[in-house]
């Protein structure tokens, strides 16, 4: 398969005009950078929202003059009102999950490096690729519109959380502030995003299966490619379900259908069917929405983190100067996680009112997914065993990823048990768990990726001194933010409360809440250093050679930055596995995949000695 000629299928001439080169580009590298820029913009919005949330939680009655000026309705006199807080919760989650954790790892780095790493000149369908970015971009514009069109409701968007549980999300303005136009736009934005992701997924799968260069057998692919491929399969199978669910939800709101709204509801003093603002609904199921949402939502967690896992394996091996430990097991583990990821969505719904028998099945399957996750962790530590580690910033973030993935993932053993969920569900241990693992660990994977690949993309290294400060503060900071949230959950602190002033049993947690807020403010501030580093290094960073890190895979065998068709007209031939470091008898401690001169006994096919 790998030596099938695919010339002519995808080849397109290098564009000359500014618009075709940088805006409506067909070049996967430009599109990848566009996705990364989108994520960098979105993460600023999402992070600012989390900052505002922390201000509200720690100083619920303080008058923040600036906020009073900016959000006259949402923060009159500078005191944020509850619905404003809840809209921040909703938009923070939505923007982070969709426009950061799904765009940067897959659309961004995947787009840029998957074709190069398998030795292709571009994606299989360049026009589709361009469309997938611009569709996603429109989705982002619409979600921003949801912020501004909600101003009159004293919110910055809907207030139903990123999960948008029906019927709160389905009833419309009658259910309270934040349920009007902003909610419609929220659903439309997500529907658009689903379409963009589907287009991207088709492209990734086709490209990887059909366009590998000569010698690039599946088991010689870098683990990043395996991760992007599996992620694309997950996206292909899960986004359509969310798209369908979103359309039904929109119909409930706008066309008077009742997919998720049962009969006999009495909302804000009005019975369904007795008032033009609240038409007659009957026969819908609120739990149906949860099934549709989480059938997508759980695979989405792996969509967010699998590319980070791939990048971590890739970068660990490079700077450990050692082959990845158990390459074959790593591939199987990625697949096992992807497959099991489709059978565990019910663990979000133990106490939703669904059948208690299915809860048992979901619980056992959920804990099973810990097995391939543990296998990956063992292999990462195995990769470092006997290594000669070079502590670059990229490597620090990759090691940080492993640490955070363990810390965040392991509490899944608690939350996955239906019995324990009786106490844990919807308390702070849940955000603690998923922020560490799908949020922060994934982001660490992306930080590792950008420090690693920046020199290939732009010909200059990111500044290592700034990078290291960025790493140290962020690494310690995220632990300070999220570890205390676990014990808040044990005490029973519920999520999505705009303030903790109403309950006696929460009083003893106030010092922890303050500690978390201060840690968050510091950690968020330090991210500005990262943005500064990106801009400064783009112009002033140290110049990087073609193979910036003495690495082995194909992206390092082409020039920096790669030419329009990636390999200047000559597709490379691959002779080795992806991580041939420290090969005995080889002239250097790394053997590039294209190096025909050096004999490698294992040849990368058999993962084991």
């Amino acid at each position, binding site marked *: 398969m790998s030596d099938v000629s695919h010339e002519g299928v995808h080849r397109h001439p290098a564009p000359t005009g500014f618009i075709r080169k940088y805006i409506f580009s067909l070049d996967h590298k430009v599109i990848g950078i566009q996705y990364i820029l989108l994520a960098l913009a979105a993460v600023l919005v999402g992070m600012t929202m989390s900052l505002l949330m922390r201000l509200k939680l720690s100083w619920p009655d303080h008058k923040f003059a600036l906020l009073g000026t900016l959000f006259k309705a949402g923060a009159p006199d500078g005191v944020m009102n509850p619905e404003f807080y809840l809209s921040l919760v909703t938009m923070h989650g939505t923007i982070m999950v969709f426009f950061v954790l799904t765009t940067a790892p897959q659309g961004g780095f995947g787009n840029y490096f998957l074709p190069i790493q398998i030795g292709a000149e571009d994606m299989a369908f360049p026009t589709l690729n361009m469309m997938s970015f611009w569709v996603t971009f429109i989705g982002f514009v619409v979600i921003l519109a949801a912020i501004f069109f909600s101003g009159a409701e004293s919110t910055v968007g809907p207030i139903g959380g990123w999960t948008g549980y029906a019927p709160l999300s389905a009833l419309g303005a009658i259910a309270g502030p934040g349920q009007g136009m902003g909610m419609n736009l929220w659903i439309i934005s997500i529907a658009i995003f689903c379409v963009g992701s589907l287009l991207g997924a088709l492209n990734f799968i086709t490209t990887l299966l059909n366009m590998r260069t000569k010698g690039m057998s599946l088991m010689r692919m870098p683990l990043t490619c395996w991760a992007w491929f599996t992620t694309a399969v997950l996206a292909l199978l899960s986004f359509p379900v969310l798209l369908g669910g979103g359309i039904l939800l929109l119909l409930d709101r706008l066309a008077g259908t009742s997919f998720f709204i049962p009969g006999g509801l009495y909302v804000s003093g009005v019975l369904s069917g007795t008032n033009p603002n609240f038409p007659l609904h009957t026969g819908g199921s609120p739990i149906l929405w949860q099934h549709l949402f989480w059938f997508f939502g759980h695979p989405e967690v792996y969509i967010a983190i699998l590319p980070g896992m791939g990048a971590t394996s890739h970068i660990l091996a490079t700077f450990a100067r050692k082959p990845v430990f158990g390459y074959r097991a790593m591939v199987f583990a990625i697949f096992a996680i992807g497959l099991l990821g489709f059978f565990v969505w019910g663990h979000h719904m133990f106490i939703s*009112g669904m059948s208690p028998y299915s809860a048992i099945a979901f619980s056992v399957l*959920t804990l099973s997914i810990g097995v391939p996750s543990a296998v990956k962790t063992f292999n990462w*530590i*195995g990769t470092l065993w006997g*290594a000669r*580690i070079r502590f670059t910033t990229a490597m620090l973030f990759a090691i940080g990823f492993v640490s955070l993935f363990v810390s965040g993932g392991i509490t899944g053993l608690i939350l996955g*048990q239906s019995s324990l969920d*009786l106490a844990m569900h919807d308390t702070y241990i849940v955000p603690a768990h998923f922020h560490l693992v799908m949020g922060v660990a994934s982001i660490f994977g992306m930080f590792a990726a950008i420090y690693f690949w920046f020199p290939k993309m732009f010909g200059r290294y990111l500044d290592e001194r700034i990078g290291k400060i960025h790493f140290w503060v962020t690494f310690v900071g995220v632990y300070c933010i999220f570890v205390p949230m676990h014990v808040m959950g044990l005490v029973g602190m*519920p999520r999505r409360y705009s303030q903790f002033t109403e309950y006696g049993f929460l009083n003893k947690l106030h010092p922890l809440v303050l500690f978390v807020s201060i840690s968050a403010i510091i950690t968020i501030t330090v991210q500005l250093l990262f943005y500064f580093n990106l801009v400064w290094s783009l112009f002033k960073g140290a110049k990087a050679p073609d193979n910036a890190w003495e690495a082995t895979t194909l992206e390092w065998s082409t020039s920096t930055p790669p030419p329009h068709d990636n390999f200047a007209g000559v597709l490379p031939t691959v002779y080795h596995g992806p991580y041939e470091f420290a090969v005995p008898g080889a002239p250097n*401690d790394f053997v590039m995949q294209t190096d025909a001169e050096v004999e490698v006994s294992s040849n990368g096919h058999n993962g084991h000695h």
Partner: protein
Amino acid sequence: MGRVLAVIIWIITALSVLMFVSKKWWFPAAISEHGPALDRQFLITILVVGISFAAAQIGLGWMVWKYRDTGKAGDRGTYTHGSNRLEVLWTVITAVVFITLAVMGQSVWAQLRLHDAPAGSYTVEVVAQQFQWNFHYPGKDNVFGHTDPKLIDDSALNYVGLDPGDPNAKDDAVTASLVVPVNRPVELRLRSKDVIHSFWVPPLRFKQDLVPGMEIKVHFTPTKVGKYELACAELCGQQHYKMRAFMLVLPDEELNAIRVMSQEQFQARMTELLAKYPTVID
């Protein structure tokens, strides 16, 4: 650099473990029959979690401490692509441990959720709405009066839609606090008028969503007299953060007296009892 990172990883690990072991912020004391079993399961789980967490972080730190690049020419890492034996070993071990935990974790769940409430349970209808709890008691006759959403009228204080024409409804009481007996099984019939809410009493170790359009029956047995805070645990809108009520667990004599009272007496007595018992918050 490697040594600094190793030390930081170890310090973070130690402090994280300490945060749990110190029990400074911990569960409130359990007040339900299933509570101690749930706490035991949590303890076993957190032990497995804590040991795995610490072992992985210590191991990671050790690799980072020990295996750094010396910069010496010709000094290379160990050339290995892994070991099938190790892969099988750690896959099997983790599978056995995790799946055992999962199976053990079903016992409390099965006891509470796979069986109906025992006959003779004390039954209360819970009707949640934005942002208030309504508790409906059957009164002297022990039969719930007929309710209908069409009869709900918040402005007339008929929060649950009780049918005044139904003789069974005459002695029913609807209040804003939950009273339940101690050491007797309690069955709650959970309903919601508008959006999803969730019944959450931390010391009870019990939580269940109230879903509009459904009546969900759950049961538990409180074991300790006192006044406890009841919180809404599912985002239900603007005032979600203060959708609070009290759950009073009463000794038999107090409960038996109150449950035969008329609405007005019930209400008045409830006010006295709420003042009598201090809120248990630990």
